[in-house]
C-alpha cells in the first residue's frame, strides 16, 4: 500500500521511499583530491549506527536509483545528538555512482538503509588498526566514538600514497584528546610493505580495513602466527569484458551455485543446470525471464552494454556474465 501512494507522498516529502530511510544533504566538501566528504541529516526514526558499521546510499541518477555501500565516518554519538552522519568517499574517474556525488546539492535528499555490519571495536586489552586509503573511515568513526566511551589502547597503522592520507588533522586532534591512541602514517614507496611492520603488533587485536591485497597480506601473516584478526575489505568486482576468450564465473541463485561461462546467455545456462526459471521469447522482448540480480555485472548481448554492480532487474535470455553474479531466487 505504501508503494501505491509513494509518488503522491513524494510531492510533499521528496525522495520518500517505502523501505528506505531519507536523509538530507547538509554539505558536500572536497577534503582531498577526488575525495568528497558528505554530511547527511538522517530522519529521527533511523536506527543509530554502531561505530564501524556501513549503510547503503541510494541516489537518483538521471531517473535511475543507484545504490552503493559506504562506511559511516562519524560517531554514533553525533548521530544521536545532532542527527548527522558523515560519509567520506573516494571518487573514481569512471563509474556509475561516485562521479555523480559532486552533483549532490545542499538540501537535496538521498536514501539510506539502516546501518549494517559487524566490524566493531572489540573489548580487548590492546587494539591495532590497519587502514589503507579510504579504509580509514570505520576507524575514524570508532575513534570519534572513543571520546565518549572507555577504550583499550589503540594504535593505528595507516597506509596511503605519500601525502594522500585522509583526515590527518582530525587524527592528530583525536590523538591529542585520547590518552591511549597513537598512529603512524606510512606509504609503501617510502616505508615498505605492511608485512614488515606486522611483527611488532603481535598480541594485540587486529582490525583491518582496506583493499583486497592489503587485507590478504595481513591475513596471511595473521594466519601463520595465530593472530586474531577482524576485517572489512573492499574488492573491486573482477570484470572480464575485454576480448572474446572464454571465462568462467560463479553464479548464485538463491543459494544454488553453479559455474557459468561468458559465451552463452544466462538463461541457457540456468536451464542446463536444471534451475527452473520462467522464460519466454528468448530475445529480450517479453521480460518473462527477468530476475533480480543482487550483485555482479552482466552484459546485454543485444548492445554490449554492461549492467550496474548493484541490485537491479535483468533479463536472463539476453545477458551474459562478466563477473561473479548473485541472484535472488
Amino acid at each position, binding site marked *: 500500500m505504501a508503494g501505491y501512494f509513494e509518488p503522491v507522498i513524494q510531492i510533499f516529502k521528496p525522495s520518500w521511499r517505502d523501505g528506505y530511510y531519507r536523509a538530507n544533504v547538509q554539505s558536500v566538501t572536497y577534503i582531498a583530491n577526488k575525495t568528497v566528504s558528505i554530511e547527511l541529516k538522517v530522519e529521527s526514526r533511523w536506527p543509530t549506527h554502531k561505530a564501524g558499521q556501513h549503510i547503503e546510499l541510494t541516489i537518483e541518477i538521471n531517473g535511475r536509483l543507484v545504490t552503493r555501500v559506504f562506511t559511516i565516518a562519524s560517531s554514533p554519538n553525533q548521530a544521536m545528538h545532532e542527527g548527522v552522519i558523515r560519509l567520506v568517499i573516494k571518487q573514481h574517474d569512471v563509474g556509475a555512482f561516485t562521479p555523480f556525488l559532486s552533483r549532490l546539492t545542499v538540501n537535496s535528499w538521498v536514501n539510506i538503509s539502516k546501518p549494517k555490519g559487524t566490524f566493531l571495536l572489540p573489548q580487548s586489552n590492546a587494539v591495532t588498526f590497519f587502514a589503507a586509503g579510504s579504509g580509514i573511515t570505520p576507524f575514524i568513526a570508532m575513534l570519534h566514538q572513543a571520546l565518549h566511551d572507555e577504550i583499550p589502547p589503540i594504535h593505528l597503522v595507516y597506509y596511503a600514497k605519500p601525502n594522500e592520507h585522509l583526515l590527518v588533522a582530525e587524527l592528530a586532534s583525536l590523538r591529542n584528546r585520547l590518552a591511549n591512541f597513537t598512529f603512524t602514517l606510512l606509504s609503501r614507496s617510502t616505508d615498505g610493505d605492511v608485512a614488515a611492520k606486522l611483527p611488532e603488533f603481535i598480541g594485540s587485536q587486529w582490525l583491518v580495513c582496506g583493499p583486497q591485497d592489503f587485507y590478504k597480506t595481513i591475513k596471511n601473516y595473521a594466519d601463520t602466527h595465530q593472530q586474531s584478526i577482524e576485517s572489512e575489505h573492499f574488492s573491486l568486482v573482477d570484470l572480464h569484458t575485454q576480448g572474446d576468450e572464454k571465462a568462467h564465473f560463479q553464479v548464485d541463485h538463491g543459494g544454488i551455485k553453479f559455474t557459468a561461462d561468458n559465451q552463452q546467455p544466462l538463461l541457457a545456462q540456468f536451464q542446463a543446470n536444471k534451475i527452473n526459471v520462467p522464460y519466454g521469447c528468448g530475445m529480450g522482448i517479453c521480460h518473462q525471464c527477468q530476475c533480480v540480480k543482487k550483485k555482479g555485472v552482466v552484459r546485454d548481448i543485444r548492445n554490449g552494454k554492461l549492467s550496474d554492480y548493484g541490485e*537491479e532487474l535483468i533479463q536472463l535470455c539476453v545477458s551474459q556474465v562478466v563477473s561473479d553474479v548473485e541472484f535472488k531466487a
Partner: protein
Amino acid sequence: MNTVAEPNYDLLAEQLNEIQSTTMAKVGEQDANYIRRVIVTQRILEWSGRILLVLGFVSPWLWLVGVLALATAKILDNMEIGHNVMHGQYDWMNDKHINSKAYEWDIACDGKSWNRVHNFEHHTYTNIIGKDRDFGYGLLRLSNDFRWRVKNLWQFITYLNLSVLFQWGVSYHELAAERVFFGKKKDNRDYKVPHSELKTRFFSKGARQLIKDYLIFPLLAGPFFLWVLVGNLIANLLRNLWTSTIIFCGHFTGDVKTFSEKECENETKGQWYYRQALGSSNIKGGKWFHILTGHLSFQIEHHLFPDMPAKRYREIAPKVQKVFREHGIQYNTGSFFKQYGSVVKRILRYSLP
C-alpha cells in the same frame, strides 16, 4: 504473406534498431518524472472519484463527475501505467514499485497471467495463427485462417459482450487457452504454470476486485451503498468499453495481416519487425487521447519496441513512418472512427463464410 515486394529485412532491422538505440539513450529523468506524474494524477482522480460518488446525495451531478473520474482513473491505471509498467518500460528506474515484477493493476486480471499471455505470446508471436492466442481471443473469427462455424454468425454480439465484460475476458484468457476448466487438454503443450496456480490466482484476483468495488467501498459509504455500487459498476463498464475498443483498433482493423507458423520459422530480426508492422494499426489523436490509450494509439511503435517508455512513441512515430515508406511497408493509421469502422467491418465480414 500477400504483399507486393518484400523489404530489405537487414536494412529494415538496422534502421529500426538505430531508432531504438538513439531513443533509449535519451530515456532518463524526464521519463521517470513523467510516469510518477501520471501515477499521481491517477491516484488523485481515483480518490476524488470515490469521494464524489458518495457525495451523490448532495447533487447527482457530483456523482456523475465521480463516475467519470473513477473511470478515467481506472483507464489510466490499466493503460498508461499498468500496461506499460508491466511491459518493463520503466524497469531501468530500479524503483521497488514501478517495475514489471511488482506492479499490480486495478483490473480483474492477475498481472502475472496477463504478463505471460500478452508480453510473451502476443508480443513474440504477434498474429501467428496458432501461436498468438490474442488473435480473435478464441472467440471471434477475424480471418480466413479459421474455419467458419455457425456461432460466427452472431459473433458481433459476442464481440459486444466481450467489450462489456472485457476485464473478465482478459482475466479468463489464459485459463481458457490452457483449457483449465473446459475442453480437451492438448498433449503437446508445455504447461509452464500448474493449472492449480492459474485457478487460485484467477479466483483470488477476481474476488479481490469484486469485493473491493462491490462490497467494501459501497459498505464504507453506509446509506449510500447503492450509489457507490452502481458508480463502480459504471466506471468499470466505461473502462471495459474503452480498453476493448482501443485494443481492437490496434489489432483488428481491416488491413492487419496474419501469418502462419511456417513462414515465421527461423525469422530474422528484420522479418520479426516486419511482422509486427503488418500486425498492428495506429489511431490518430491529441495528446490526452494518446495518454488515455496508454499510447496504444501507437500500436505499431509499441509492437516494434514493447519495452520503450510509451510516451516516446509519439516522438519516434514520424521516424518509423519514414522508414516504412522507404521500404514500401504500409503504415496503418487513421482517425478513431475510420479505424473503429474498419474493425466493425472485419468482425461482420468474417461472421460469414
